[in-house]
């Protein structure tokens, strides 16, 4: 799940991490009001969409740039009016762009230095790790490649947490001056607390800045949340903006389905994440292109299978469908009945290849045979993949 910049700012503020003052506006009037409250004429107006590259983006109405420096509340209002309700196209949005429903009005700070600072969960050590660098404002992968000696790593004890001395050591290593050590250490501690208490897998602040006035601030933050922990953070779960997501994925999540949309033309319905990935791989191996990842899981009901199948059919790019089930907990007859129900409701527009194996396989095959559905049966995984690739090419 991704969140907007203004939501990230609110989350940081909640944990006491210093960021430039600012608030989000839904109308041009609100934008002007917020600018007035901020009490300065050095302001920035930022379009709120999930995609990167906003500054260099262009609006469908011709207005250039999703990030603007402005010098007065009146100008903030003017710029906000040109952004709100308009579609912003950046190198990450694709040609369709994203509609801007909110803008962030914030104090624009003069930057003295830029730092990279991230807290992440290190899989190798099963512990949190702080990764920081004096080379802020650029992608950390680039720094890692060009000057790896400029990246510092501070491992954190998973039970004790981040110790205060570690924050001071990091501040020193990152070249903060003596009078900046305390605010820097305080910001690092707050970022670590945000990471742990929000169940993140990563909090990346790039850049973390020192302003010309000597303040130490988190200027931009990117969060990765642990989906498994969202149940205990309803306030974070509520930050989800479905308008920013693939509509197919939004529909799938309503039915508790594990679905990821891709741009190929062979839809697949599989049980188990590993087998679902492997099914995509084998489709590709035989020259096809998968339209999605879909794991119906072990405990899916007949209704969920029906909804999953409807979702696959509704994708206009899909030229053929592969159902690959190895029944364990999932019973093959449940899958078969779910498919039959779905096809009853919506006519089957494309060829369907079915490979069933495992628990209740005979009952499943019998149900499909009796239903009179035009199904291409497959003996094993390789056979199924080859048949569906052929079918998608219009040869069956």
């Amino acid at each position, binding site marked *: 799940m991704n969140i907007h910049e203004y939501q990230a700012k609110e989350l940081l503020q909640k944990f006491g991490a210093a960021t430039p003052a600012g608030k989000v506006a839904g109308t041009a009037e609100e934008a002007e009001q917020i600018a007035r409250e901020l009490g300065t004429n050095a302001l920035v107006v930022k379009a709120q969409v999930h995609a990167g590259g906003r500054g260099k983006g262009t609006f469908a109405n011709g207005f250039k740039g999703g990030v603007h420096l402005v010098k007065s509340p009146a100008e903030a209002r003017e710029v906000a009016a040109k952004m709100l309700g308009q579609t912003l196209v950046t190198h990450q949005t694709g040609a369709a762009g994203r509609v801007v429903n909110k803008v962030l009005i914030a104090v624009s700070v003069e930057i003295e230095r830029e730092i990279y600072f991230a807290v992440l*969960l290190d*899989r*190798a050590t*099963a*512990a*949190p790790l702080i990764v920081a660098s004096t080379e802020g404002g650029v992608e*950390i*992968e680039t720094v890692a490649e060009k000057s790896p000696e400029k990246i510092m790593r501070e491992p954190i*004890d*998973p*039970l004790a947490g981040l110790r205060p001395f570690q924050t001071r050591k990091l501040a020193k290593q990152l070249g903060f001056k003596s009078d900046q050590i305390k605010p820097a250490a305080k910001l690092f501690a707050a970022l670590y607390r945000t990471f*742990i208490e929000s*169940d993140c*897998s990563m909090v990346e602040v790039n850049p973390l800045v020192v302003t010309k006035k000597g303040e130490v601030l988190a200027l931009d933050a990117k969060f990765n949340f*642990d*989906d*498994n*922990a969202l*149940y*205990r953070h309803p306030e974070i779960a509520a930050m989800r903006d479905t308008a920013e997501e693939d509509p197919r994925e939004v529909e799938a999540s309503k039915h508790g389905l*594990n679905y*990821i949309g*891709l741009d190929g033309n062979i839809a697949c319905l*599989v*049980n*188990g*994440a*590993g*087998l*679902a*990935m*492997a*099914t*995509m*791989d*084998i*489709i*590709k*191996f035989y020259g096809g292109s*998968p339209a999605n*990842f879909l*794991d119906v899981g*072990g*405990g899916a009901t007949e209704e969920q299978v029906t909804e999953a199948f409807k979702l696959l059919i509704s994708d206009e790019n899909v030229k053929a469908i592969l159902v690959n089930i*190895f*029944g*364990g*907990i999932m019973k093959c007859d449940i899958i078969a009945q779910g498919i039959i129900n779905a096809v009853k409701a919506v006519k089957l527009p494309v060829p369907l290849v079915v490979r069933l*194996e*495992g*628990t209740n396989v005979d009952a499943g095959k019998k149900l499909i045979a009796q239903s009179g559905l035009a199904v291409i049966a497959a003996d*094993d*995984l*390789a056979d199924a*993949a080859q048949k569906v690739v052929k079918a998608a090419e219009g040869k069956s």
Partner: protein
Amino acid sequence: MSVLVDKNTRLCVQGITGSAGGFHAKQCMEYGTNVVAGVTPGKGGQKFENKVPVFDTVWEARQATGCNVSVLFVPAAGAADGILEAVDAGVELVICITEGIPVIDMMRVKAEMAGKKSWLIGPNCPGIITPGECKIGIMPGYIHKPGGVGVISRSGTLTYEAVWQLTSRGYGQSTCIGIGGDPINGMSHLDAVKLFNDDPKTEAMILIGEIGGAAEEEAAAWIKDNCQKPVAAFIAGATAPPGRRMGHAGAIVSGGKGTAAGKIEALKAAGIAVADTPATMADTLITTMNGRK
């Protein structure tokens, strides 16, 4: 011989009175697994299937029955605590089937287990089976056959696929271990490889991995220097888009790390035969075994 579990295993089922726990406990018993205890807090004193005593705590179950392995079918919110409860009771092997445990909870569990004697398998895994002797978990028993191939995997159904290919071709399995699809888990690929390497009955291994992390690379490096037994592998997720979690919480390529291509390269560099597709996992191993004869 086999690894970790066999006909002498005395199993405790945590969450035995729940719907999933009850269903699978029964399936395991039908397979022949010796289920000696169940645990559900507040339901102590009951009998499961008129046979297995239910206790309020694992501690009590261990005292009363001498159970040495425990399997968890408890909801995600309580699973981390349940694992530690079993470890505290002195159970040798804890198997956590539960999916969806917050990763920070698992991070703490792993840190608290450091230095303890208990093994953890999972979470988010199908379990472990020694065919013909003991099935602990949610895998369909009938696809397995006793034999000499050790199977290690991060994925449930992909394991069934490999096992079924082996069985259909007449090759049985010594033990199959599903280590789970989470980013922080108990037993790693390498831990399992070492166990199979030391097991005289295991003649060969299939190692099934997927995108994310570096556990497969770690196992590959060790195999290169220490393992004489034939090993075949498959890595799922070559077509997965970067930055997306592919169903399993641990299956994600981030910052260009944990790609299928990188893992396959590391495995091949260690002299391990890597199957081109999931349909040829058993054939790849059989070819390697025959090549060594």
